[in-house]
């Protein structure tokens, strides 16, 4: 048993003597908990549990406050204040393969943190909603959905089997999911990176550097002023609308998927498009038409608009490339 320094007790059902003396607290099935600790305005807040749901929001106090009900399988929890912030961890009884197959109702947590927190949230089977963190947010999930809104700073959201919904998220953004969709609005960020394997991406973003990867997932996006755009898909369909900056760069490739990009009418860029083995090219931006190799399946289209200061390179093996005006 370890000590919990500087804890503020706020009505926990756990006996006060045990709370003050211990870091690891035994938890009864579906036990209600309530813990809090004073912190700085910018603490690191680490939350780790196995299953359930959590809602993390900010308040004006320099204090981390956790309340809720633990799941049936939750055995102990730790609530620790350290030099840089607070760590809360729920230990769950383990049966073989429980962690990947069993979806217990789990913990139900409401967590309040200072707006300037650096939040690290980890769970296996859980849904999480996070609002208004202004410093940095990192979420790692296996099974579960992530919903965030009004985040600022560096944000990294990862789930394996789950959807990710963002609303009015600003700052550097990195999102990964394997079997889940990504959707929402990304505002005022320099960089946005979205990765799926089978999930779809539906994003509105103001990132100036944007990268999107998928294997089979489709992508639909509207971007503001783009300096760097990288799109990689194997079989997904891509439908994007961008405003390319004067010296911007676009690189988009697919193996079998269709990529459609719409540019501002006055775009000034050098366009180079290639279809390698049966791939097709459709140009609705200018009158230039694709050329076809006399021998072999290769097609290509190259032309320049305006002073050609920006660059657009698109390629497909046997998919379709289409460029349009918006």
């Amino acid at each position, binding site marked *: 048993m370890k000590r919990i320094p500087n804890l503020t007790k706020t009505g926990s059902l756990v006996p006060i003597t045990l709370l003050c003396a211990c870091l690891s607290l035994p938890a009864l099935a579906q036990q209600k908990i309530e813990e809090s600790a004073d912190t700085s305005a910018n603490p690191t807040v680490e939350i780790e549990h196995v299953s359930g749901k959590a809602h993390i929001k900010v308040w004006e106090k320099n204090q981390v406050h956790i309340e809720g009900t633990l799941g049936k399988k939750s055995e102990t929890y730790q609530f620790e204040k350290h030099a840089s912030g607070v760590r809360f961890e729920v230990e769950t009884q383990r049966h073989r393969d429980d962690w990947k197959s069993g979806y217990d109702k789990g913990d139900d947590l409401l967590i309040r943190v200072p707006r300037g927190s650096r939040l690290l949230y980890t769970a296996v089977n859980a849904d999480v909603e996070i609002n208004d963190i202004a410093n940095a947010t990192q979420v790692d999930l296996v099974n579960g959905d992530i919903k965030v809104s009004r985040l600022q700073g560096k944000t990294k959201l990862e789930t394996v089997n789950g959807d990710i919904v963002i609303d009015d998220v600003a700052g550097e953004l990195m999102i990964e999911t*394997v079997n889940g969709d990504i959707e929402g609005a990304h505002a005022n960020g320099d960089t946005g990176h979205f990765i799926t394997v089978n999930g779809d991406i539906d994003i509105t973003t103001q990132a100036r550097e944007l990268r999107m990867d998928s294997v089979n997932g489709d992508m639909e996006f509207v971007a503001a002023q783009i300096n760097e755009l990288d799109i990689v898909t194997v079989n997904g369909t891509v439908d994007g609308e961008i405003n390319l900056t004067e010296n911007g760069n676009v690189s988009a490739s697919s193996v*079998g998927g269709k990529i459609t990009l719409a540019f501002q009418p006055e775009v000034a860029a050098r366009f180079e498009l290639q279809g390698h083995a049966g791939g097709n090219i459709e140009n609705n931006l200018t009158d230039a038409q694709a050329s076809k190799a006399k021998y072999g399946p*290769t097609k290509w289209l190259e032309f320049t608009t305006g002073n050609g200061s920006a660059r657009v390179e698109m390629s497909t093996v046997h998919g379709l490339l289409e460029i349009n005006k918006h």
Partner: protein
Amino acid sequence: MDSKSRLSKLLKQLPTEKAPERDLWQGIELGLEPPERSVSKGRLLWLGSAAALILSVGLITPPWVSFTPESAQSPVQSPAQQPFEPRGNTEPLLGNALVSSLSKQHTAQLNALLTTMQSMPALTQNWQQQLTDLRQAETVITRALKQDPNNTALLQMLQNVHQQQLFLVKRVHTPQWQRI
């Protein structure tokens, strides 16, 4: 019929056009067009980087390098597993040799990663099908590269599907989840 007449008859039977066995026009075009048409600076830089990577990866890759989309590295690669010997060879690999080396190196990386991860339960049920999709995409790209082995867009695409394979395997077997 004398030999001259026979030859004349045979010559008339020959087709008036002879198609090359593969698409040569791109190569001819690249030789005729100004530099702007041939390969962009960025692509040349990428091609050089890919060749340099082939030469240097065996020397710099540590025993375990965490794979992330930002830094797609080899996870397990002992010198003995290297598919080629970069030491002492300063010639950059191009064309089919580069494609072959990239594929061999990737296969070694993927197999090593799969071996490492095989004792860990997978977090998804469909990752093997997704890996199969990616391997099929790799085959399609490699086939296209046989027609045009120095095409930087195709080479980059090949690298992309290699990275996506490693990312997928690592993501669905992430060791960090085993401790929770």
